[in-house]
């Protein structure tokens, strides 16, 4: 029977390996992030980003290891095709931290787009400024960003061409998370439901013991 089911079991193992590799790859690429700031109050697009127009937002990082910024884009339901320039600066030193160039065609319709960069170890309590521009775009081939009408985020402001804008851009920031912290937080949660933990452990233990016993000794049956 073992040989007959070999292709099936090998197939399942292959699927599991692919899934594990994919997950490991995702984690390795800095997907292990957790939310830091979420400015999700928005009503209208801030206006087309093209030519000399530069739209930006300042914010104060509340954690170390800032590594990702999501921006809520508007595509106006058309296929925009020009380059978009994302820049991140430390506002106090005016030092440019990263510059990312993407094509407008990569931006999903009315959805967040994530900009990843190397984690900034000492980001906590520092003020940062990110900006978006697209010199090659023109009004009929330009994206925009959703923004609030009022000052929804008190830690910073939106800017258009360096001028303060009354609202804030819809954005989210993330920092990296350690694997150790992830596991310890899971166990802390598990311990809170102590009775379940004991019963679940017993059930799992019994099943594993059963597998080992049957695999090692076989089952004695009276017919």
């Amino acid at each position, binding site marked *: 029977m073992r040989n007959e089911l070999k*292709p099936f*079991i090998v197939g399942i193992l292959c699927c599991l390996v692919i899934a594990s590799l994919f997950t490991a790859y995702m984690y390795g690429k800095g997907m*292990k992030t957790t939310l830091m700031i979420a400015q999700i109050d928005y009503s209208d697009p801030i206006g087309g980003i093209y030519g000399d127009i530069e739209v930006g937002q300042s914010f104060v990082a509340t954690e170390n290891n800032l590594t990702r910024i999501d921006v809520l884009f508007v595509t106006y339901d058309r296929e925009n095709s020009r380059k978009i320039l994302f820049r991140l600066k430390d506002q106090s030193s005016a030092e440019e931290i990263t510059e990312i160039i993407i094509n407008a065609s990569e931006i999903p319709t009315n959805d967040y787009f994530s900009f990843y960069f190397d984690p900034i170890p000492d980001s906590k309590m520092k003020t940062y400024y990110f900006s978006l521009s697209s010199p090659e775009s023109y009004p009929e081939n330009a994206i925009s960003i959703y923004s609030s009408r009022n000052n929804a985020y008190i830690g910073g402001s939106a800017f258009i061409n360096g001028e303060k804008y009354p609202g804030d851009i819809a954005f989210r920031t993330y920092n990296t998370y350690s694997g150790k912290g992830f596991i310890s937080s899971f166990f802390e949660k598990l311990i809170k439901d102590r009775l*379940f933990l004991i019963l679940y452990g017993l059930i*799992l233990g019994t099943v594993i013991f059963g*597998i080992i016993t049957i695999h090692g000794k076989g089952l004695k*049956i009276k017919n």
Partner: protein
Amino acid sequence: MALSIAIDTAIKKMKDYALRLIPIAYREDPSVLNTLIKWFLVGLLARLLFMPFAFHGDLLSTYHRSYLLIFEGSLRYLNPHETIQAIALWVISHIVPVKDFLVWSGSTSVSNSFWLGTLDHNNIFSFIFLLKMPYLLFDIAICILFLHLFRNEVKIGTRVFIFWVLNPIVIFSVYVFGRFEVIPIFFILLSLYYIKENNSVASGCLLGISIVSRYYALLLLPLLLIIFFKNWKDRILYTLWTSIPIIILNLITRLYSDSSPSVNFVKSHFIDYVTGMNFIIEENGQILYVFILAYVCILLYIFYKGCNTKPLIEYCSYSTIIFLLFYSTSYFHPHYFVWFIPFLGIFYGYYHDNSIMELHCLQIVCFMFYTFYWGQALASWMIASINPEVLKTMTAPINFIRYFYPGLFLLNVVRSIFSAISIFMVGMILWRLKEAIPNEE
């Protein structure tokens, strides 16, 4: 001392009783029984590992309806799976505060914010584990049913049993996604068992119950009528038995609420899904539905080809074909993919066709990508109870793919490959059916 003897005797009695559920032909050979129990425990371990930690918001939605049925007497939700869940919920309500997880206003479908909000609850693991317990019982019942379907054909039964127990699609749909699919599948298989035992009344009623639970079972009725019955009188009688549970349920829900299963069926999205792929023939509204066209062609083929020395095998093979056509031509939710697993398992168990198994493994790989269409909801959110803070905010796989390649385009390519594999499998099964049926035992 006396206590330990008593415990020992009780364990032995329980073991004997449990073993009695397995047909005698399987018990006669210790190596077969050994194989069955070993793989069953491996499958059980895989199920247990996911049970408390993974679920989709749909699990809360379906149990919310069961909550309304048992605690608020809302009879519009009186259908087999929600009634079974309601009974389970009544028991669970004595252990875990179910109101914290299952009460919200407005639509009976849970919102993402409510679903994600429940993840921080201290009892989330025990609650999710308990909600899936009825599914586990039905799952085990299905395993036993497979052995009884092939009571005297040990090799076939063992292959089908292991195929079901280890199938990742079953584990995903029921224990990761948290859907009740095993309940209608159990009734479909039980109906098959009774038809094999020449009990049309029980078989028809059970198929009717599965239709009320999941409308897709209706696709199996014409197939069953053509393959298992030779004259129209028997076919009409069987249809009458099938319609009994449907009529009873319609009457009850019509009397006590403003809805009925038949109205729900007409309004259901399932109709939209099966008619999704179509060709406009003429601008005056004439449309050709691809799945319906293929489905009727298959029915006519079986009807005029005539059958059959092994109706059970033919029925399962053609059911597999119909579901493969559905998956390749229609939009379907990921948990629907489990619908054809019992039929494919029986086909594989009987023909022992390794090429079909290889193709099924390829399907599973493509299916993993297919789930990416649903973004975070079918990725990190499903296991977010482990660490909500991190997993709720994790980017959806499709967004990640977008960094390297247009994500949606890649998914559509994989979707096309998935359809191609499914259509190729249809061809292989038809080709297999043209060959002489092997005599396994």
